[in-house]
């Protein structure tokens, strides 16, 4: 093991002497957390809804009052009072508004007389998600009106369904933690392992250590171990910051922490070894950067970190099930959000262990021992 330790030490020292690279491996996933947390938040908020009230009757006031409640409550829409329909339509077309609600004259009196009344809701359906949210907000305000509308019929008295969440509420920001930790693991693999080997080859430095009695496995295991150590440090920092920022804690006591550690080590080692298999023989570091950038995307998005994999098409679902990042995310979710579901986490950890073993073996067999 002395030779493996020497390979590991060399690799570690070289990375530690470049702290900016390490800091980037920590900071970038946290920036992702910040960007994703603020750009892809679950419920949409602050969508501008123009309102032209040409009627000042009680039903209109009730409708607007209900919309104000949505504005001040969930905050889905931000009401913009307008006097002119044409101006409202122009602003809608200009993209200033996500929707325009026009309440026509005699809206209240018609309703009071029992005549079917209608209000106009114009939505910018180029952005399907935003237009649906605006429609939903207006729908939510309709029950405030006691009489049926022609367009939006009010059905009073359907059976009420109250959803019950089986785990403590997970805020959107917190729900990103497993994905961001896995991303930090991947980013650490990008600056270690195969990258260092290819950089050595590119600079011609490898000729010196290939002239020593180091064996193939000494080189492979030493480089992978140093990469795993770096991975553990960077992902531990990212996880700690994520937990502190969101108030989430690791459940399951010692077993929970052990599983988190196992997930980080096995995912890091497995990804490093996979990178070595795919890129270890590349002739230029640019190739490693390019392919790793590609791998980061195709492994991260089908990991379930952002979207549930159940909604994927069948082929992508099949890919997700063999994607180590999916298992890492699932295991972390089990420990962080499912009250420390050790059994569920263990299943995913076992997959990661198998993946890791296979990649370690293949990378050792494919490591190039000659120039």
């Amino acid at each position, binding site marked *: 093991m002395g030779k493996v330790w*020497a390979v590991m*030490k*060399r690799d570690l020292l070289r990375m530690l*002497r470049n702290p900016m690279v390490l800091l980037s491996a920590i900071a970038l996933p946290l920036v992702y957390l910040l960007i994703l947390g603020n750009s892809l938040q679950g419920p949409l908020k602050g969508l501008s809804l123009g309102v032209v009230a040409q009627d000042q009757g009680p039903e209109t006031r009730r409708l607007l009052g209900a919309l104000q409640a949505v504005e001040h409550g969930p905050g889905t829409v931000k009401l913009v009072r307008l006097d002119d329909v044409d101006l409202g339509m122009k602003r809608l077309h200009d993209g200033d508004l996500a929707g325009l609600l026009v309440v026509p004259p005699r809206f209240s009196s018609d309703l009071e007389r029992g005549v079917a009344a209608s209000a106009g809701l114009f939505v910018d359906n180029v952005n399907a998600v935003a237009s649906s949210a605006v429609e939903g907000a207006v729908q939510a305000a309709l029950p405030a009106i006691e009489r049926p509308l022609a367009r939006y019929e009010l059905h009073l008295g359907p059976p009420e369904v109250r959803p019950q969440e089986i785990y403590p509420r997970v805020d959107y920001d917190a729900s990103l933690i497993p994905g961001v930790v896995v991303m930090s693991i991947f980013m650490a693999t990008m600056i270690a392992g195969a990258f260092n080997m290819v950089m050595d080859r590119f600079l011609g430095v490898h000729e010196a250590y290939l002239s*020593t*009695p180091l064996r193939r496995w000494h080189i492979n295991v030493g480089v992978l171990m140093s990469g795993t150590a770096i991975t553990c440090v960077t992902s531990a920092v990212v996880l700690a910051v994520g937990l502190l920022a969101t108030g989430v804690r690791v459940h399951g006591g010692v077993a929970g922490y052990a599983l988190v550690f196992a997930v980080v080590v096995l995912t890091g080692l497995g990804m490093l070894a996979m990178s070595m298999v795919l890129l270890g023989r590349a002739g230029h570091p640019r190739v490693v950067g390019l392919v790793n950038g590609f791998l980061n995307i195709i492994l991260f998005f089908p990991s379930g970190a952002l979207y549930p994999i159940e909604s994927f098409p069948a082929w992508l679902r099949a890919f997700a099930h063999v994607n180590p990042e999916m298992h890492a995310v699932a295991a972390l979710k089990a420990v962080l959000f499912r009250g420390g579901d050790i059994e569920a986490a263990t299943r995913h950890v076992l997959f990661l262990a198998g993946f890791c073993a296979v990649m370690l073996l293949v990378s050792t067999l494919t490591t190039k021992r*000659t120039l």
Partner: protein
Amino acid sequence: MTAAIEARGLTKRFGSVTAVDHVDLTVEAGEFFGLLGPNGAGKTTLVRMMAGLMSITSGEARVAGIDVRSDPDGVRAVLGVVPQALTSDLDLTAYENMDIYARYFGVPRARRARRVEELLHRVGLWDRRKDLVKKFSGGMRRRLEIARGLIHKPRVLFLDEPTIGLDPQSRHVIWDLLRDLRQGDALTISLTTHYLDEADALCDRVAIVDAGRIVALGSPAELKARVPGSDTISIGLAEPPPPERLAELRAAAGVRDVSAEDGELTLRVDDGARLLPRLIEDIGATGATVRSASVDRISLEDVFIHFTGKSLRDESAPRGAPQGRRVV
């Protein structure tokens, strides 16, 4: 006694290109051996095959009696290699570079620190042992890498263009270091170079490599002696010599050709240094006054041109490096 380096029919092909072509070579233990040739001649490929860094297409290679093909690890254990590229780790200190390679070679802990210290002293870098190598000059890095190549007390040291890119002063420091190593250790050194003066100054024997083949092999003196009429004697006379005197000189032993321009005689001869006193004596006996005399001796450059038909001078020769004829 087992030869330090042996090659029999050693060949390396890259597709349709033959980089090393049926090379036969024996380097005796303790020898300072030079592989001399231009860039692309196949020298580095030959060394890399010997070091087990590159697969052998055909033929056999042994280092310290160990077969390279069947026991590459055994060869690497007795071999020190200083590659052409600067290969020390810039982000490590000089000491760390040495220590890590000592571990690669399995040098026991008890001897490691002592060996590192001894070698760093030897190459004059002990005082800079804690400095990151990125602060070192090219010459210092090369000295460190030579020390690193010796960390496990190898029996054979391969140096691939050890002074390439260095200034003349650094080159001479490296030469002194190599001479010192040669005297201090029971070490066989194989030096790959395309600097003729380097091979001339350091090597016991030189193999001239061209297009993957060894075209000449011997000591620098032997190689020079194989080139007929390659020394030039210039003699300045007070008066132009008469034509019959030129004919007599042309017929003298060891003289290949004679020409005269005014009072300046130019003779192409086999061994100028030995012939010059006799020529001066003979010319003086005819009553002519000799005003000046010089011998322009053959260099390895001339030898190289003789054996390969082309010059070895190229753009990579360091400024100030003497490579042509030497005037004595």
